């Protein structure tokens, strides 16, 4: 399917806001959902709605089959060795919490250390910080330079024999910085440390091949690639998952339950206590199909062009300051208008029909290191047009004009 015709698949993009055409530039928060995903979920709901794994009846078998087919689909999408390495979660946040809790129980104790970076989303910062506090381990943070790049020299200094895991974002949700993850993984592995990649922002822009990357864990959310909210994936190498106890307990993840003790089933079900979001998972599978039909490479190339145009436009507007200048950006760019709080800018853009995000973007440590209170973030996706980027820039010029007027 050609990428230029994809826009037609997204009914939300036809919305009018305040009597104007919607310009949706908040895809880093949630990507819009194509009709194909909605249709797949509707079919699952209408024809196969039943609980999985535990019923010996037709509907349950079909429902189980549909869900497990998505597990295989995700395995192929990530090029994982086996479906035992693919855990369904409610999203990146839950993936990271499971990883931190389970890895913590198996591998972390007093004297050990975990490294994250200062550019992490709170979801990849707080769970590790808390598990380190609970287990008496040391929590180390790699700083970010003024361009918004990770300080690899500092990472090298922080890596020592005590470090059991390094957890970093592939792409920063605030600045769009693409981190040199291959290099980070090589550095960590040379030190004997495991690596988790938070791919919440990378998943739509980059082909993720866990065997080629050689990462030990990886996670992403369904709604960042056109699937429904409440779905996500945690990938883990089997050698790690086999040693990790569950983070949650309940139905579907036990082997034998006795009054004194319980034994647990194998991965991935060991990490999936309770009834999963079956319809959502079917939607996640349809979203992956949709993106792969378009081609991640084609999406990435076109989104890079959209972002380049956005950056050029932002740079040409007096009073607009782009935040950070990383060597490579993907998916998102942050800025501020001089004299305006980021909420003022986003609120005024909204009145002109432009949907962007403002605030701390769940990345307070990064903002603090950049000396900022918040930013406005623009995040186009492949369904946006160059004309929309230009219309956004025209709207922002009007906002910047108001800011310029009050300065005088």
């Amino acid at each position, binding site marked *: 399917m050609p990428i230029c015709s994809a826009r037609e698949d997204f009914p939300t993009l036809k919305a009018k806001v305040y*009597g104007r055409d919607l310009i949706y530039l908040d895809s880093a928060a949630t990507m819009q959902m194509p009709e194909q995903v909605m249709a797949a979920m509707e079919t699952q709901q209408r024809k196969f709605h039943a609980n999985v794994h535990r019923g010996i009846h037709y509907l349950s078998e079909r429902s189980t089959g549909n869900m497990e087919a998505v597990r295989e689909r995700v395995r192929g999408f990530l090029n994982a060795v086996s479906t035992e390495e693919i855990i369904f979660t409610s999203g990146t946040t839950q993936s990271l919490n499971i990883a931190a809790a389970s890895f913590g129980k198996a591998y972390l104790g007093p004297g050990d250390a975990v490294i994250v970076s200062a550019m992490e989303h709170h979801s990849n910062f707080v769970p590790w910080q808390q598990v380190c506090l609970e287990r008496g381990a040391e929590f180390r943070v790699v700083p970010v330079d003024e361009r918004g790049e990770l300080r690899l020299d500092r990472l090298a200094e922080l890596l020592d024999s005590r470090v059991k895991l390094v957890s970093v974002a592939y792409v920063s949700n605030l600045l769009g910085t693409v981190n040199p993850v291959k290099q980070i993984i090589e550095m960590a592995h040379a030190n004997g440390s495991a690596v988790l990649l938070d791919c919440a922002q990378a998943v739509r822009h980059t082909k993720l091949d866990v065997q080629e990357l050689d990462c030990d864990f990886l996670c992403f959310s369904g709604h960042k690639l056109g699937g429904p909210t409440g779905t996500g994936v945690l990938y883990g190498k089997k050698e790690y998952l086999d040693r990790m106890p569950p983070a949650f307990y309940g139905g579907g993840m036990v082997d034998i339950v006795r009054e004194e003790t319980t034994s647990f089933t194998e991965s991935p079900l060991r990490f999936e206590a309770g009834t999963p979001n079956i319809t959502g998972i079917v939607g996640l599978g349809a979203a992956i199909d949709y993106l792969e039909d378009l081609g991640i490479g084609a999406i990435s190339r076109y989104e890079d062009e959209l972002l380049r145009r956005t950056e050029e436009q932002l740079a040409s507007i007096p009073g607009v300051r782009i935040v950070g200048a990383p060597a490579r950006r993907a998916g998102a760019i942050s800025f501020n208008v001089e004299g305006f709080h980021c*909420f*003022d800018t986003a609120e*005024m853009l*909204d*009145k002109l029909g432009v949907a962007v995000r403002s605030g701390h973007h769940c990345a307070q440590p990064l903002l603090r290191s950049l000396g900022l*209170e918040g930013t406005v973030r623009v995040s186009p996706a492949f369904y946006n047009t160059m004309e929309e980027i230009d219309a956004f820039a025209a709207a922002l010029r009007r906002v910047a004009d*108001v800011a310029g007027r*009050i300065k005088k």
Partner: protein
Amino acid sequence: MSSIKEIQDGIVRDFLEIGDAFDQYAYLIELSCLQPPLPEELKTEERAVKGCQSSVWLDMRAEDGHLVLHSDSNTLIIKGVLYILEEILSGQPLGQVAEAEIDFLQRTAIMDTFESSRRKGLGYVIAAVRRFAADSLAGA
């Protein structure tokens, strides 16, 4: 001095003449510049209104049975709203402030275009001013 209702009616008229939501917001921002900032030492935890997405501080005093209100915010749009609130309520008798029906936000449709957390936050601001007036009256 004009009554709370008269001042509010005048403000609503001004806004309705302005036009669309963007121009109303631009006007709010221009109003925010008319308001002198609250001195930093007055931006204390006690003066901060809890529950607001933006930071909002209210410095309130009762003088001869009337309200003296100064306010500030870190966002200009909210500062503009606070400026209007001061125009309406500062200098009014405490009894009238405590009973005042503050509805200019709803009547100008500004409230409709604020997201829900902002709407809630502004509700807290108005409630805090009315409560201060009622408490001052009760304590007097």
